[in-house]
């Protein structure tokens, strides 16, 4: 019986019905990230989890064996701030229009923080996932198996989720939720308050102070019999839920500003942007705040006037941005990469290579793309390395991950194998 099982499983796989529940990749180069590299090792996956990783494993007879000679196995890559699998921002606001118990969004321009403008903090990425998003396949093709996805429109945009980048149903894809609250400093979006950066910052401070008061008032109401009930406010509920707050901080001055804001409001900050992190290492070390580096490195606008000379300050900013990763790694500070403005997932490895060329050790780059990102979101026990018991998210290549000619052969998400679509030459040339 046991002997025929692999055959049945193979048949099932061929029919696309049920994936094999146990797979072993044998004799491959294994890069677990959490431990030393195994030059000829085996990794066994079962029921969506990693069952074993080692050099001299003999997998159980029911395991479907893949010969891994010439292949390298890495943990699946994680995009540390993404919108893959989420609808475009416009539909995030249409989710807003669904009748909800709270006050409807004000039609008139907001006059002050009490109107809660640009606040959709109750939105949860986990509720918005669209498993049919075409970008999920593209992302897997680039070696990404997980992402921290966030709604991003508005100042208090909403709650993120760590998701796996494959699944039949949205709920199956979620690894952890809520993963944090996404904040931006965008002003002047609805012609009302806040119309300036100082207004936005004052608004953020007021909102978190309101959240603190809201919590205290709700708690007092639970304890007290005769007390006027405090009003329910979904915009503030979202602020109370979040385990961490993502704050925009690209320039050194912005990093400084956001760290001060987080300290004042007693938030657990995760900074995103980070292109001048190399100039703010001291502040970052003192705070211990993780940095998410945008892989869309600053570059000259292709649309720009060819006669316009860029200033030294701008040239230096562009030149040094990719060295931020190396600076953070040297200082031993937590950081990860995110897709940011990089439109095509397959360009992401090239962008990471830029950071490597600017001094980042390849091992540190790999860690930032896997275990480092998982640790920032508190899911390093589930994702980010090849260790028994972790989710079977893997990327299998035919060489070093950061070599340009290296091809991604397979990715595994929750133990399910995917083969990247072959790029047509026309597409590659684009």
């Amino acid at each position, binding site marked *: 019986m046991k002997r025929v099982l692999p055959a049945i499983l193979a048949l099932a796989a061929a029919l696309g019905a049920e994936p094999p529940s146990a797979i072993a990749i044998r004799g491959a180069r294994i890069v677990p990230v959490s431990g030393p590299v195994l030059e000829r090792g085996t990794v066994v996956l079962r029921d969506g989890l990693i069952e074993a990783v080692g050099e001299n494993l003999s997998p159980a007879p029911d395991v479907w064996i893949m010969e891994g000679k010439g292949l390298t196995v890495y943990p699946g890559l994680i995009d540390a701030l993404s919108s893959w699998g989420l609808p475009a921002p416009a539909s995030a606001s249409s989710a807003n229009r669904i009748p909800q118990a709270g006050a409807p969004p004000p039609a008139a321009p907001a006059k002050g923080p009490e109107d809660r403008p640009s606040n959709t903090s109750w939105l949860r990425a986990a509720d918005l996932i669209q498993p049919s998003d075409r970008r999920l396949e593209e992302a897997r093709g680039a070696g990404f198996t997980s992402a921290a996805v966030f709604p991003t429109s508005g100042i208090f945009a909403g709650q993120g989720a760590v998701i796996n980048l494959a699944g039949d149903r949205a709920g199956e894809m979620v690894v952890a939720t809520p993963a944090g609250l996404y904040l931006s400093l965008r002003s002047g979006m609805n012609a009302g308050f806040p119309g300036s950066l100082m207004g936005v910052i004052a608004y953020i401070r007021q909102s978190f102070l309101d959240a603190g008061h809201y919590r205290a008032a709700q708690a007092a109401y639970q304890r007290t019999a005769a007390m006027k009930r405090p009003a329910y406010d979904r915009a503030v509920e979202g602020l109370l839920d979040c385990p961490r707050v993502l704050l925009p901080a690209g320039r050194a001055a912005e990093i400084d500003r956001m760290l001060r804001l987080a300290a004042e409001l007693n938030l657990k900050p995760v900074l995103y942007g980070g292109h001048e992190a190399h100039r703010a290492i001291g502040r970052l070390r003192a705070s211990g705040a993780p940095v998410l580096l945008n892989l869309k490195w600053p570059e000259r*606008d292709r*649309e*720009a*006037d060819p*006669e*316009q*000379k860029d*200033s*030294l*300050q*701008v040239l230096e900013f562009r030149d040094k941005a990719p060295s931020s990763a190396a600076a953070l790694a040297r200082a031993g500070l937590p950081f990860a990469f995110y897709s940011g403005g990089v439109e095509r997932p397959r360009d992401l490895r090239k962008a990471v290579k830029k950071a490597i060329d600017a001094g980042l050790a390849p091992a540190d780059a790999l860690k930032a793309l896997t275990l480092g990102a998982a640790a920032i979101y508190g899911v390093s026990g589930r994702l980010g390395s090849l260790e028994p018991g972790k989710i079977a998210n893997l990327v299998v290549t035919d060489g070093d991950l950061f070599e340009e000619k290296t091809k991604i052969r397979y990715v595994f998400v929750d133990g399910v194998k995917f083969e990247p679509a072959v790029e047509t030459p026309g597409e590659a040339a684009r």
Partner: protein
Amino acid sequence: MRAAALLFACLAPLLAGSEDSFALRNITIHPVSAPEIAAGTLVVVDGRIAALGASAAVPRGLRVIDGKGLHVYPGIIDSLTQIGLSEISAVPATVDTTEVGDFNPQLRAEIAINPASEHIPVTRAAGITSVIAGPMGGIISGQAALVHLDGWTWEEMDIRRSAAMMLTIPVIQAGGGRGSPPGRPSFAEARRNYEKKLAELRDFFEAARRYRQARLAGQAGFKTDLKFEAMLPVLEGKVPVVARATRERAVREALKLAGEQKIRLILAGPREVEGVVKEIREHNIPVILGPTHVPPLNEDDPYDRSFTLPGELYKAGIKLAFASFSTSGARNLPEQAATAVAYGLPYQEGLKALTLNAAEIWGVASEYGSIAKGKWADLMVTDGDPLETRTQVKHLFIKGRAVDLDNKHRRLYQKYLARP
């Protein structure tokens, strides 16, 4: 003695031309066109300079002003302003600089000048006796006038009613850069707009040329068009074109246009000249310098880029004149020149660029711009070097008539000085 003085006072108005006839004695004369004369005499009769020298004869009965410790210079010419066209820039009702449309050569700034503008006495107090008042806006903005800063009407102020045709070279106004205002078009789109504007400009010149030929040929059914009429002196080289061009691309475009259309070009306000300075020199194009007291154009330019530019252009052999490009700022023109002198422009050239060069560029050097026999007596009398900030203008003469130096700034100064 007192009776004699009284008699003279009564007779004075009866003497022919007494208001614009006088002699300055014992004064240092700085003719600009010639070496200075210490303790000299300058004789003005009927508004014109009759004689000057160490011992020029003073006709009998002429009013004599003792110039001990004083200096006399030709009056300063500000080679581009909006004086009389704009009173308070923030109050649209007082601004008459700009007409709707891209091509308005028929507009004459002179007739729009407000002779009662408060800026006129303020500007005069700095030793400025005449200015170019130019319209702005669109591509061809209209005709700039050279006017005296004195007169009850614009007719009395007039020197050259059509001193130049004002042209603003279009620029590519693209967005996209950091800090650029929102809503600006992409570079590609902005460049298409720009090229369209340039094509329209060439078409306009071409149409004006055809109009002229039809007019000369006495074509049947010929219809007078004021726009094209105004272009005739430009096409015939009688009136120069002042092209406002800051960046190198605009300067190149102005030079190209002048070559194609065979027009007399004057460049106004170029600030990015490295790549074009040779060509400006080769074609003998005069340059109207913009204000020097401005930050450098590009972030990485040396801090003194705006200060050294006049000296560099001079060394390249280019004829220069200073302009304030302003209304309320015109009074600072001598200081703008002084900074250029401190940063490499030879002193005499600084003075010339305020006086004689300007007169030459505007085609009035036979009448104005220096202290020479036969020229109009536009004079400033100072207690020192006009390029020194502390120097005071003691007298100002326009066509030999003393001009009141009182002005709003002085009145405000007196008012607040008297505050208990």
